[in-house]
């Protein structure tokens, strides 16, 4: 083994440039995969850092849920439970050591007189015992902290929060912390590395579930028709998931049929049957509960596919290199066999060389992985970058090493077998300086390069599709000019404001912000613009009967007076909101063009009445029609929207502000924060950014996929061109004598170049066609991810194919020129 290693090292050092290129090729392939694996591992594989995570299970309650549902990053509303159902199951179950409930909430925290906007979690008393955690300091919440509604003002904070905000103060236990306006006592610090049970969310404070009203989470806890809690549990020793599922459904079904079904009024018989047939799901819960598990799978798998192709292309280069090296060492192999080496021993020796090469590639790949991850961080918005650890942890290192070994063995095997085939006499007689290589090897080499071209072509086309889609996204007509806009949000309710005080605060904020030098206009809205937020309501429209409830479901927003003017959104008809549209004045609304179109209001929208919410009273007059502006995100069609003045809303507690400035918007962010701090130093200012920045963050996945796929496709093309160059150089070297003979017989330089370029053209045409076929299939599969673009977009296909063909022809031209420069006299003397 050591001898093999020594010899392998010597072989690599013998041709440092070629070995270096090979190591770099592999490093690019393995590194890109390791980087994507790092994200994959963190988001989709990693288990919770708790005792025996394999014993945790998640509970889900799919099926009809009439009433209200509320969900967050922990998962869809299909898996949420009502509070009474949680308490019923908690009391009666026998198969778990405990069931825990949790609900994330936005937390405005006051720490040592500093306001901070963070995430908190409401948790049942069983939460920490079920997870089996040990506190870093003090104690964790227990059932005794969660036994009486509104009784225990206690909180646990995260280790990172203790470190960052309290400087790891050893006297942390007993210190106060203000959570959404109420003061709690810190009883302990969660263990280091524990950030809750929802990937992508890093809550910093845990509050007992029974303190929900004290932290302004106003879900209807008493109602069985209000579904908002996420549940997980720990299996008792000896109980498996199947047993638990059976046992839990034996409890759940009678509650559904005997207690909850009678509460459903006016439910049609079909829905009732489905309601009564509802089953509780028990699923593995080692990874916690998170929407990310569902949402990130497709983009990550797509990136994995791309980086996998990059690695395949790199590996093809290595296989070609090893084949060429093997041909050069045919005599050595023949001699070794003649001296009594078994083929197995020689294959082992050659595999040692390829694995060593791959391992060196793997080591450099860790650097590439680190750079790739840094590149990904640069593409992500800060909140998303914060949830991922972009450091090389042992699973990534293990992945890189494992991938290196597999790569070395798989792609070293054919060359090793080929180099040690039983053509002893031919090998020995060929002599040390002659290159030998059979037809099989030549075919294999050509096939590898053709495959590389096919893979690169398809990658280039797919990346061109994503890039064109991204360009469409960034050029999309938003309906509003965002270049000179800046924005931020505040939640006055969480800072202890009641509705009346909130309204005063928001009005003052508008006035103060308008007075900031450089500011030309200020607007505010309850639903932030183009920020993946939405608010829908079912309404009634004068003169229009909706055949289905969904037909009258529209988006809404509550906005300030002068909102459209401040955003430069023209009114198509009627008027803009003004200061007279306040609480107590006649209720008014402005609708957008999509609204007019859907309900066929034509030129008669203004003056019609609608209801605000699902009531029968048509008491809101449409006073204007505004031009369409994008609502939740750039890619979705503009939905029908009706706007009402927030000053006519009795519940305005949170608000997003839009500041138009004649200066570059980034220059005014500091002044905006300072203005709000003057108004209330305890009110956290959230999401303070320019609007272009906001739009970029909304499109983060498009940007990430577009830019990364292009980067990987260019790397793939570069590797493929190296492969093509290598194979052609080798072929030219092998055919030097033949070329010499041809030239001696009268072939000119042009015809020799044509000879080589014909080989290039063959590989490019076949590889290109295969790549186009693969790209068509990929384009069809990725259609949903493309914006205003078909999966067969001719521009993307043409540009990508031309680029690939140009690079390939360039890579082929150099060896072709070298071939045409062969001196026949020299070539015929070649030995």
């Amino acid at each position, binding site marked *: 083994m050591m*001898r093999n290693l020594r*010899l392998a090292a*010597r*072989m690599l050092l*013998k041709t440092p440039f070629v070995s270096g290129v090979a190591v770099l090729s592999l490093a690019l392939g393995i590194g890109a995969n390791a980087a994507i694996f790092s994200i994959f591992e963190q988001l989709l594989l990693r288990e919770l850092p708790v005792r025996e995570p394999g014993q945790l299970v998640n509970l889900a309650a799919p099926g009809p849920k009439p009433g209200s549902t509320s969900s967050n990053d922990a998962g869809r509303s299909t898996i949420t439970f009502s509070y009474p159902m949680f308490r019923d199951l908690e009391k009666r179950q026998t198969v778990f050591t405990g069931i825990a409930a949790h609900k994330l909430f936005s937390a405005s925290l006051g720490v040592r007189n500093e306001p901070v906007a963070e995430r908190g979690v409401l948790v049942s008393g069983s939460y920490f015992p079920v997870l089996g955690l040990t506190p870093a300091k003090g104690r964790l919440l227990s059932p005794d902290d969660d036994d009486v509604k509104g009784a225990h003002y206690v909180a646990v904070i995260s280790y990172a929060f203790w470190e960052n905000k309290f400087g790891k103060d050893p006297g942390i236990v007993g210190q106060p912390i203000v959570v959404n306006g109420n003061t709690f006592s810190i009883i302990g610090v969660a263990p280091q590395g524990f950030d809750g049970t929802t990937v992508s969310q890093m809550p910093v404070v845990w509050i007992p579930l029974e303190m929900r009203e004290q932290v302004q989470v106003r879900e209807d806890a008493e109602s069985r028709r209000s579904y908002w809690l996420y549940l997980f549990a720990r299996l008792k020793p000896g109980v498996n998931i199947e047993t638990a599922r059976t046992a839990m459904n034996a409890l759940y079904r009678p509650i559904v049929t005997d207690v909850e079904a009678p509460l459903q009024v006016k439910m049609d018989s079909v829905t009732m049957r489905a309601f009564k047939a509802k089953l509780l799901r028990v699923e593995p819960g080692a990874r916690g509960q998170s929407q990310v598990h569902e949402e990130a799978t497709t983009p990550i798998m797509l990136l994995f596919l791309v980086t996998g192709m990059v690695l395949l292309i790199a590996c093809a280069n290595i296989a070609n290199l090893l084949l060429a090296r093997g041909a050069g060492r045919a*005599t*050595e192999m*023949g*001699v*070794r*066999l*003649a*001296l*009594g*080496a*078994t*083929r*197995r*021993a020689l294959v082992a020796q050659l595999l040692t060389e390829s694995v060593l090469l791959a391992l060196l590639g793997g080591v450099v790949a860790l650097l590439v992985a680190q750079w790739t991850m840094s590149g990904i961080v640069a593409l992500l918005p800060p909140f998303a970058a914060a949830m991922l650890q972009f450091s090389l942890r042992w699973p990534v290192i293990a992945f890189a090493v494992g991938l290196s070994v597999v790569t070395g063995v798989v792609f070293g095997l054919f060359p090793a077998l080929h180099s040690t085939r*039983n053509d*002893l*006499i031919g090998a*020995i*007689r060929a*002599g*040390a300086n002659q290159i030998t290589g059979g037809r099989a090897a030549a075919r294999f080499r050509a096939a590898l390069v053709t495959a590389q071209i096919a893979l690169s072509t398809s990658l280039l086309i797919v990346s061109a599709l994503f890039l064109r889609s991204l360009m469409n996204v960034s050029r999309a007509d938003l309906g509003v000019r965002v270049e000179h806009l800046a924005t931020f949000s505040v939640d006055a309710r969480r800072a202890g404001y009641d509705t009346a005080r909130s309204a005063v605060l928001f009005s003052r904020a508008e006035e103060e912000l308008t007075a900031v030098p450089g500011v030309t206009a200020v607007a505010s809205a309850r639903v932030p613009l183009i920020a993946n937020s939405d608010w829908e309501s079912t309404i009634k429209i004068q003169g229009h009967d909706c055949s289905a409830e969904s037909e009258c479901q529209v988006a809404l927003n509550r906005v300030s007076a002068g909102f459209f003017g401040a955003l430069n959104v023209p009114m198509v008809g009627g008027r803009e909101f003004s200061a007279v549209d306040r609480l107590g004045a006649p209720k008014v609304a402005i609708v957008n063009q999509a609204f007019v179109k859907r309900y066929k209001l034509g030129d008669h929208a203004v003056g019609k009445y609608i209801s605000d919410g699902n009531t029968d009273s048509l008491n809101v007059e449409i006073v204007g029609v505004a031009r369409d502006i994008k609502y939740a995100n750039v890619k979705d069609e503009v939905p029908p929207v009706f706007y009402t003045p927030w000053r006519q809303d009795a519940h305005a507690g949170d608000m997003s502000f839009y500041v138009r400035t004649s200066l570059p918007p980034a220059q005014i962010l500091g002044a905006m924060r300072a203005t709000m701090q003057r108004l209330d130093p305890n009110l956290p200012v959230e999401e303070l950014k320019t609007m272009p920045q906001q739009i970029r963050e909304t499109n983060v996945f498009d940007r990430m996929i577009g830019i990364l796929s292009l980067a990987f496709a260019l790397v793939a093309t570069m590797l493929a061109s190296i492969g093509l160059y290598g194979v052609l150089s080798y072929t030219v070297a092998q055919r030097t004598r033949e070329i010499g003979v041809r030239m001696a017989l009268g072939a000119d330089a042009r015809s020799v170049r044509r000879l080589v370029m014909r080989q290039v053209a063959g590989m490019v045409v076949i590889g290109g066609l295969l790549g186009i076929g693969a790209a068509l299939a990929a384009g069809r599969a990725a259609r949903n991810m493309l914006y205003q673009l078909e999966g067969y977009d001719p521009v993307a296909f043409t540009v990508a194919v031309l680029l690939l063909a140009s690079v390939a022809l360039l890579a082929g031209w150099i060896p072709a020129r070298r071939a045409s420069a062969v001196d026949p006299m020299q070539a015929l003397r070649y030995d």
Partner: protein
Amino acid sequence: MAPNGNGTPLIKLESIKKVFYTDEVETHALIDVHFAIAKGEYVAISGPSGCGKTTLLSILGLLDTPSGGEYDLAGESVARLTPVDRARVRNRQIGFIFQAFNLIGDLTVAENVELPLTYREMAASERKDRVAKALERVQMSHRAKHFPAQLSGGQQQRVAVARAVAGDPAILLADEPTGNLDSKNGEAVMELLRELNQNGSTICMVTHDARYAQHADRTVELFDGRVVEAAAV
């Protein structure tokens, strides 16, 4: 045929045939070849170019298999040996000396000589010992750490001889051992082979040069794949 001391030849060939098939053409490289080599003998196989000398040597060295006939080595038929067994026999019973030396350029002189020993389960100390003795026999100890490219052709062939004898094989097979050497170095190598034979080594050498064939005890003459003469020198 010259039997060895106890009546069993070291090498015995009976009706050996070798046919090459290429693109519908049959080439009969060896036709009904009979001969034997006794232990301690020094045999030269000679004949014009293309007469089948090297093919015969390849079959003797288990680098190739005959199309027909019987080949016994040290009293054992080699016909049904598996590839692994053939490798083992090559390693332990046969020492090769090639025309082009075929030293491995990436290994030092000592490592080249050690090479056949590494394919045996042999302790490192014994390997070192044998390498030292083999190099001493060919007077190349002082070049042990050099690489082949640093040696002259004659020196390279001496190292190749050392590699062939290091494993103490039953027979040395030499394929035109002087073919790539000038006459002075050629003579020196011939002298070396003579010495080895005198010290008990059995040698079978292919050569087309009558001068060198005279060094052998006996010459087997091949012509168009047939043995036409087996004469004592």
